């Protein structure tokens, strides 16, 4: 178990590609940190640098207070779980799990007990003498985990360890990994593509984009106070809705009507010299069917025509289209590309609202919606910065 400190880590591949820029992070002993971001943002590269599988171009990496930049992976005492599991196909499960110990010249009897202990924890005891090719996906995944925990290393590194499993198994394994990590208390860095995994697993989440760290924080913090458009759009599912807005005297004029600006927000905007043209972000759950809200809370009502109504039982999702969403913002284009929205070829700008299942909303007919204006986010279109939560990212 150990503290891992990344200090100004930069990676430039030999072909010139700058994969990670100035990565700073202190991972506390026993902490579970998630690296998340769209494809190609440098997550695996960062992990491989911690593992020692890729050289660090600039910066220092300290494990337990010692600089390990120039140490080979085997001298770092770190275990890794690969996306492909990378099980040795010619060895049975027992030999796979004991391989690292065998290389470290650990006594055979000790290896045996450790492997069997790990197999017991992971429920692999009856498969110990089988070859990886004869195991199911979930079993292979557990063997890969077992290979890591047998060594009792200073830290676990996991690169999308669940992405080869089907949806149901993934949820199961996710809880298993979380429980295992809590039980062993080993420092863990976990890379994922999947923002649900990111939100549910880690103590802290690092959101990356294009090799740059965007924000670091607890899942709830990232959700409540994203520092910029990118984090706001990336965290949460369905994602935050974005609208173009013009700042008027006491309101933000949007295609959904005027959203009142309260004192706190006005002062924040004034202090930051906000431009007149802004972007407003509204999470789907900050909408509600106006008929169900009553008079009790302040907010803004508006009317829209329902395109699609999706009921998932506990909630109803309502989709509607707005003319002229915020255009020409690279972050938003990137987010759309990452989630595959860009390819659906839909015109206009989609808004998703999450409503109480009691709603009467019907496809094709207009409905009154209520917006919780106290929870809206306001972004500067030029920098993408969140003006509602101007605090610096916490490290």
């Amino acid at each position, binding site marked *: 178990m150990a503290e891992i400190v990344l200090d100004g880590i930069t990676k430039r591949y030999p072909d010139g590609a700058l994969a990670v820029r100035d990565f700073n992070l202190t991972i506390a002993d026993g902490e579970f940190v998630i690296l998340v971001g769209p494809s190609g943002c440098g997550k695996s590269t960062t992990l491989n640098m911690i593992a020692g599988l890729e050289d660090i171009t600039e910066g220092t990496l300290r494990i337990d207070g010692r600089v390990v930049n120039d140490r080979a992976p085997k001298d770092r005492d770190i275990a890794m779980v690969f996306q492909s599991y990378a099980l040795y196909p010619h060895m049975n499960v027992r030999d796979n799990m004991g*391989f690292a110990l065998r290389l470290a010249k650990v006594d055979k009897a000790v290896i045996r007990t450790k492997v069997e202990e790990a197999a017991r924890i992971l429920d692999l005891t009856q498969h110990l003498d089988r070859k990886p090719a004869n195991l199911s996906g979930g079993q292979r995944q557990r063997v890969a985990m077992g290979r890591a925990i047998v060594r009792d290393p200073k830290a676990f590194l996991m690169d999308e360890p669940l992405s080869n499993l089907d949806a149901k198994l993934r949820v199961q394994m996710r809880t298993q990994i979380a429980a295992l990590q809590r039980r062993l208390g080993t420092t863990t860095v976990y890379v994922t593509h999947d923002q649900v995994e990111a939100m549910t697993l880690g103590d802290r989440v690092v959101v990356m984009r294009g090799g740059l760290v965007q924000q670091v924080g607890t899942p709830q913090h990232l959700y409540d106070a994203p520092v910029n458009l990118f984090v706001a759009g990336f965290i949460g599912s369905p994602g935050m809705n974005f609208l173009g807005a013009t700042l008027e005297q006491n309101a933000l004029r949007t295609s959904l009507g005027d959203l009142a600006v309260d004192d706190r927000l006005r002062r924040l905007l004034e202090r930051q010299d906000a431009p007149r043209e802004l972007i407003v972000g509204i999470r789907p759950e900050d909408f509600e069917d106006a008929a169900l809200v009553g008079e009790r809370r302040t907010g803004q009502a508006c009317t829209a025509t329902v395109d699609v109504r999706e009921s998932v039982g506990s909630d109803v999702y309502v989709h509607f289209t707005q003319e002229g969403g915020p255009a020409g913002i690279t972050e938003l284009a990137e987010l759309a590309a990452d989630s595959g929205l860009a390819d659906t070829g839909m015109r206009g700008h989609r808004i998703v609202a999450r409503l109480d299942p009691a709603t009467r909303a019907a496809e094709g007919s207009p409905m009154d919606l209520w917006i919780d204006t106290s929870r809206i986010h306001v972004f500067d279109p030029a920098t993408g910065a969140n003006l509602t939560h101007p605090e610096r990212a916490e490290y």
Partner: protein
Amino acid sequence: MMSHRGRTLTGWGVVNLLVILYALIPVCWIAALSFKDPSTLTDGNFIPREWTWANYRGIFQTSEFTRALVNSIGIAVIATTIAVVLGTMAAYAVARLRFPGKRVLIGMSLLIAMFPPISLVSPLFNIERVLGIFDTWAGLIIPYMTFSLPLAIYTLSAFFREIPWDLEKAAKMDGATPAQAFRLVIAPLAAPGVVTTAILVFIFCWNDFLFAISLTSTTAARTVPAAIAFFTGSSQFQQPTGSIAAAAVVITVPIVIFVLLFQRRIVAGLTAGAVKG
């Protein structure tokens, strides 16, 4: 009238039969010749009228052929072993490691794969005479292993590339040095590729004729293909046809056995280097 399916099956049967006849007739013909009695050798019949082992007894009685057979086996085995060992080392490096000069190595093997052997015969003839290895096993082993190295490197590096790269990273994370990663993880997985390559290289060495007649002058190192070409009849007026046919059959047998046993692997090996990449 036959059903559509029946017709298709018959059609494929005929096609398959034609292909098999194409491949086998010349081989069967030389085998048939080898069993012919000297009196019926020149009757032009495909199938021998009189079957006899006389030709085989004949060639195994003279040291000319047995000596050549020993040479052929010894030279091919040694050259194959060396080429496969060196080729495995180089192919692993080409497929897996980052080091300067990799492209030079690839380019060079490509060049040698295309090299006309006749261009090397004259200088090698002279160099080997100076070094005193002309007409020795070493004199043939050296060019054989050189010319089969590109083949070995291509085939093996294609096989190495199919072994997932993650496995090696995993071995590194498990604390293996690069040498251990190679010995304990990659080598066992590469074994089928190595066997395939060994077969292809062996066939290559077994097959050679030009070096064998150019770089030998006595039976000291002459291999079977060259020896056959120097066979003489038992008398001046007798053609050595029967002996040649028998010797030809003897050196064809191991190839046929290889092909029967390792058909799948040979196909994989032949095509792996050429299509990937």
